[in-house]
């Protein structure tokens, strides 16, 4: 009995110590946010292609240029202050002065040259997709570099603002390089060496990432340093648990919640819900238009008319969405907002088109989706199943993981796929268009239509090679209109990311492409 009592006293003491330890916060302003999944790595070169990782990378690193998401998504200076080119082959770029990396290495032309040269030789570097044309670099002075590409890349600066083109300290890479790993790729998986607004304090993958304010931050696009001292980013996969934690006050902010949860949270005292416009999250239905029954234009059009978009937006997305107008989403270069009205809900027209098609008696088809891709997809699938039953299409709903879905879409003849497409950056409408509509690039199943069209095949590379934004936008519109005429997809919604937070949180923003901006957040 005595041993039992001693054990109880020790246990109570230990628990008390843990509670007291938890109270030792000082005057720091700490923001606790929760997200459904963590990035697999902190290495911007290899991992930032995934949304989870790019969220982490954007806290720690900066890019050469940024986009002005407040205005027109045009490219604005980042770690570069200016650039000149006449032929889009030879570029002279000017490096921002007075910036240092988190390890105190100065940011200058030499550091830029190191990064560009590294991207050019690493097979993992996603930048290589664009800089297949990467050629030579030459330092002109401490803050000026000349880049000589092998071919003209008019959209070079648009591409350079993506998270995987984050700039890394050359000193850190050299210090941690090994014979087998000359660019310290393994070290960068768990460490950082950026110039971003926050410094990595600790990272337990799949559990939490703690970053603290970088006191010497140069200010970024908005020329300001963070207003919070520390950010704790928890990984909480279950949406219901994140909601509970928010209600209990254990976290300050979270997203990726289902509509039901959002509706409940909107009613709660002390919690506010905010939706953010201007992101490129698009929901669509994919199908292989070269395989039956979707090789029949009337079937594709009938489905486009059979879906009640307004009902989906009102009932499922609670108004935090709008009808998708096309591949460059509304607000982006080359978007055609008027195309949102190209297909509207018209059941009679849908029925008529079906009866005129080769499949007048209807057919049975699979609709696959990855439930983790979007919290409301289950409802989307059920609503679509119900709408299509009206035009004699029996939809079998199948849940798959995204990698399987994209593989099946890549193979073709897969039925229908419900996809959430978030694009990769705001300035890259070019990619949105060419991935979805053109066949000259592999997309590993992200271009599900298998559509080839002579006009589009010519326009896409032309658009990519056109530096003039107005002309380029016109080409995108032309391509998008052509895709609508042929009902290449069903363009359902453009989503507004919704975040729920304690009502003392102000100045939080979610910016394209679905990134959380923490550096102006305040806790009142």
């Amino acid at each position, binding site marked *: 009995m005595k041993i039992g009592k001693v054990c109880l006293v020790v246990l109570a003491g230990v628990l008390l110590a843990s509670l007291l330890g938890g109270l030792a916060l000082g005057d720091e302003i700490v923001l606790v946010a929760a997200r459904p999944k963590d990035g697999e790595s902190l290495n911007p070169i290899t991992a930032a292609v995934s949304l989870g990782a790019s969220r982490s990378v954007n806290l720690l690193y900066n890019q050469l240029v940024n986009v002005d998401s407040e205005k027109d998504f045009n490219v604005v200076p980042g770690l570069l202050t200016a650039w000149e080119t006449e032929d889009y082959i030879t570029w002279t770029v000017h490096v921002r002065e007075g910036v240092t990396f988190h390890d105190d290495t100065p940011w200058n032309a030499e550091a830029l040259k190191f990064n560009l040269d590294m991207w050019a030789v690493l097979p993992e570097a996603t930048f290589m997709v664009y800089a297949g044309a990467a050629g030579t670099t030459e330092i002109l002075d401490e803050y000026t570099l000349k880049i000589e590409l092998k071919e003209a890349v008019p959209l070079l600066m648009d591409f350079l603002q993506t998270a995987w083109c984050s700039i890394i300290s050359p000193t850190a890479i050299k210090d941690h390089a090994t014979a087998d790993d000359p660019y310290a790729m393994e070290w960068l998986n768990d460490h950082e060496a950026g110039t971003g607004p926050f410094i990595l304090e600790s990272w*337990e993958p799949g559990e939490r990432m703690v970053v603290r304010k970088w006191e010497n931050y140069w200010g970024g696009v908005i020329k300001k340093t963070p207003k919070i001292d520390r950010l704790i980013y928890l990984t909480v*996969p279950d949406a219901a648990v994140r909601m509970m934690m928010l209600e209990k006050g254990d976290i300050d902010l979270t997203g990726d919640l289902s509509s039901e949860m959002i509706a409940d949270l909107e009613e709660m005292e002390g919690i506010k819900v905010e939706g953010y416009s201007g992101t490129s999250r698009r929901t669509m239905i994919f199908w292989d238009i070269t395989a039956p029954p979707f090789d029949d234009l009337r079937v594709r059009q009938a489905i486009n008319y059979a879906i009640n978009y307004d009902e989906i937006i009102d009932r499922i997305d609670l108004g935090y969405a709008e009808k998708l107008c096309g591949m460059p989403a509304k607000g982006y270069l080359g978007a055609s907002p008027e195309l949102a009205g190209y297909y509207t809900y018209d059941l009679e027209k849908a029925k008529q088109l079906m009866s005129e098609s080769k499949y007048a008696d209807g057919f049975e088809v699979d609709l696959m989706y990855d439930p983790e891709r979007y919290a409301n997809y289950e409802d989307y699938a059920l609503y679509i199943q119900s709408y299509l039953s009206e035009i004699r299409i029996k939809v079998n709903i199948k849940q798959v993981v995204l*990698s399987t879905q994209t593989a099946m879409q890549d193979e073709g003849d897969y039925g229908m796929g419900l996809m959430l497409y978030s694009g990769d950056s705001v300035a890259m409408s070019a990619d949105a268009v060419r991935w979805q509509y053109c066949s000259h690039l592999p997309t590993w199943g992200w271009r599900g239509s298998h559509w080839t069209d002579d006009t589009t095949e010519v326009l896409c590379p032309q658009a990519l090679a056109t530096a003039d934004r107005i002309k380029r936008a016109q080409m995108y519109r032309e391509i998008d209109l052509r895709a609508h005429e042929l009902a290449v997809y069903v363009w359902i919604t453009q989503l507004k990311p919704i975040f729920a937070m304690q009502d003392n949180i102000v100045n939080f923003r979610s910016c394209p492409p679905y990134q959380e901006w923490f550096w102006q957040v305040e806790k009142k």
Partner: protein
Amino acid sequence: MIFYILRRVFWVIPMLLGMTLIVFTLSHIVPGDPVATALGPLATKAAVERLKEAWRLNDPLPIQYLRYVKQMAKGDLGFSVYTRRPVMSDIRKYFMATFELSTVSLLIAMVGGIVLGAISAARKNGILDFMVRPLSLFGMSMPVFWVGLLILLLFYYRLGLIPIGRRIGLFIDPPTRITGMYIVDSLLTGNWTALGSAIHHVIGPALCLALCPLAIIARQTRSNLLEVLDEDYIGTARAKGVSEVIVVLKHALRNALLPIVTITGIQYGYLLGSSVMAEVIFSWPGIGRYALTAIRHLDFQPVLGFSVVMALVYMLVNLIVDVSYVYINPKVRFS
């Protein structure tokens, strides 16, 4: 005895080979390209091919399998295309979190199950027995995700007794890594704040995982004990005036333990396998979630690594259980 153990260890080899062959084959039947998945939609064919070549994923499947077996024999479980880290280093990181959770769950299940089962048997048809029997049935019938949600709702949301969403307090640094188990590492480093926090954080998921094995152990203990309590030597002990507590704990329980040890071994395997749900619900960064992520990204080598480690642990636990029979029941001999 040593010969028996060696023979059992030897049999691990064909079992592992069979298991890896099945998992390897199944992994490659699933449509998809892990390298393209990892590189994302932007990847060029050349980039994908370059990496496939570098990671030797273009070789015929039998060659890839043989190479995997060869490197597995050297303790190398391959490379994760998704995390870009050696699988062994990933598993070392995540497995210990699961091991800690499963072990605490097993302790709760064993202690709780044996105590409840013993009380229920000793007070047969009493009030406690009537309470324990339906409760154990409830525990066995409830799926892990449902129990997890109930625990969250009651102990976290309503009563505020347990924290969730992490392995240690928000503002407490994890203990210096020695084993990777926060409780053990805190004890070894004398970090009492971290120890308290780690225990506090493991309670919720451990209870969730422990409920089913606890119920099974309780039922098994009860039925075994009732059988033993009917034996003649128990009647003799009672006739000699030995108190009921001594009769149950000293004379009856030890003899009733043998099947319970077997059940416990099986339950440990169950705990490791079913930890995925608890890890997702309680945001516990364990190997179950790691395997789930690997499956989602068609990352075959971590899936294989996970299967190998789990199989090894399961076989090891069963071996320990079998060997422990000798010590629990002197009549057992391995000949």
